[in-house]
């Protein structure tokens, strides 16, 4: 299990992290470590980060989350960030931070579907 405050659950081939606490710099750093270690341990092929509970996301947190996705990708794991709130999206974009290269989905449900689709045709991406 993870050592930080954010639980990372394994559902089949996918890891699910639901963030429900405010993300301070140290928390998000710890989270990045936990996720990567968990991927190494389980060899999961997909990662879903649910941020629907977050009302604010600062640029450091956004960058760390995006980087986590890119790091996971290097380890062969596809990341989907789900449930971003409108206000968060607007703020990030206004700050010029587009999180390019990261997949997103409207809800956890859609994120799971996206991961499942990807598994069915693994060479498509």
């Amino acid at each position: 299990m993870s050592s930080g405050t954010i639980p990372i659950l394994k559902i089949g081939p996918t890891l699910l992290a639901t963030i429900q606490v405010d993300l301070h710099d140290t928390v998000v750093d710890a989270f990045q470590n936990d996720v990567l270690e968990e991927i190494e341990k389980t060899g999961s092929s997909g990662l879903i980060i649910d941020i629907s509970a977050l009302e604010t996301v600062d640029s450091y947190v956004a960058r760390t989350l995006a980087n986590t996705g890119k790091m996971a990708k290097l380890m062969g794991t596809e990341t989907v960030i789900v449930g971003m709130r409108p206000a968060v999206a607007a703020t990030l974009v206004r700050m010029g931070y587009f999180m390019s290269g990261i997949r997103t989905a409207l809800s956890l449900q859609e994120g799971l579907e996206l991961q499942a689709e990807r598994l069915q045709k693994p060479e498509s991406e």
Partner: protein
Amino acid sequence: MELGIQPDYMKILKLDDEEVKRRFDFFELTEEDFRRLTELKSFANRCTQEITEGLYELIMNHPESRAFFPDEATLSRVKRMQNAYFLHLFSGTYDLNYVRDRLRVGAAHERIGMPPKLYLGAYRRYLALIHERLLDHFKGNEAESIKALETIRKIIFFDMALAFDTYIAAYLETMTRHQAAIRELSTPVIKVYDRILLLPIVGTVDTQRANQIMETVLVQVVEQQARVIIIDIAGVPVVDTKVADHILQTTAAVQLLGAQTVLTGISASVARTVIQLGVELTRVDTRAKLSEGIELALSIIGKKIASKKKRDPEDED
């Protein structure tokens, strides 16, 4: 107002017993003043006609103010109301009902569009007329007439304050209503199909509107769990770098939510300017016509528009 509904100014201006008391305090209206006003009742009854006539002499001598009283019937009606107003000053009860009546008078002036300058100017003549009559009434007793005038001045200023508060509240009301109407009109988000939204943008897009468009789009996408939002800019007269930038931002934000944007309504001239300006719109899915945009959106959610199969020849005609 337009619908015949009077806004509740008592509520808007938060006029309760305490507020009225605070106002009386500030205008230094004391029990003594109220008593003096009540004592002047017979004086008021005697000279209200004269004062009203004097007031309307001023009003009717100036084309700007005369315009508010187009015919004899209106004039005699407002004169009657003026008399009633005057007598009410000396009625003896100065409570919430008094205030409500004063607000009604203020609202009536606002409704007919009487500008404050005329309202205030007429009040000046009004006070002068009252002063004249008071000197006459207290013949020789100057001290008493000064006291009486001061009392009347207090209550009249108290009334004017209420009228002005009504003016301002009414303007604010109208403004808020218009702003809300414009806001709503400027970003109509239409559900085209299950999980496909359409936002036609008509008119100039400035920064404020762009921000509002982005907000509406994002909220609607999440609320309706839309997969695709089609933004149609056929009605935007000029697409410059700024507008293009706003569109790019909105597109990026929609992407962050996990949905997609399709941009349609791009005319030849818009395409030309955008490229000449060096704006990078290639990251956005674009189409010339809205119909093509809808087709694209459908294909994104895994649907397509197909022609109906021809029926068997036997079934025809």
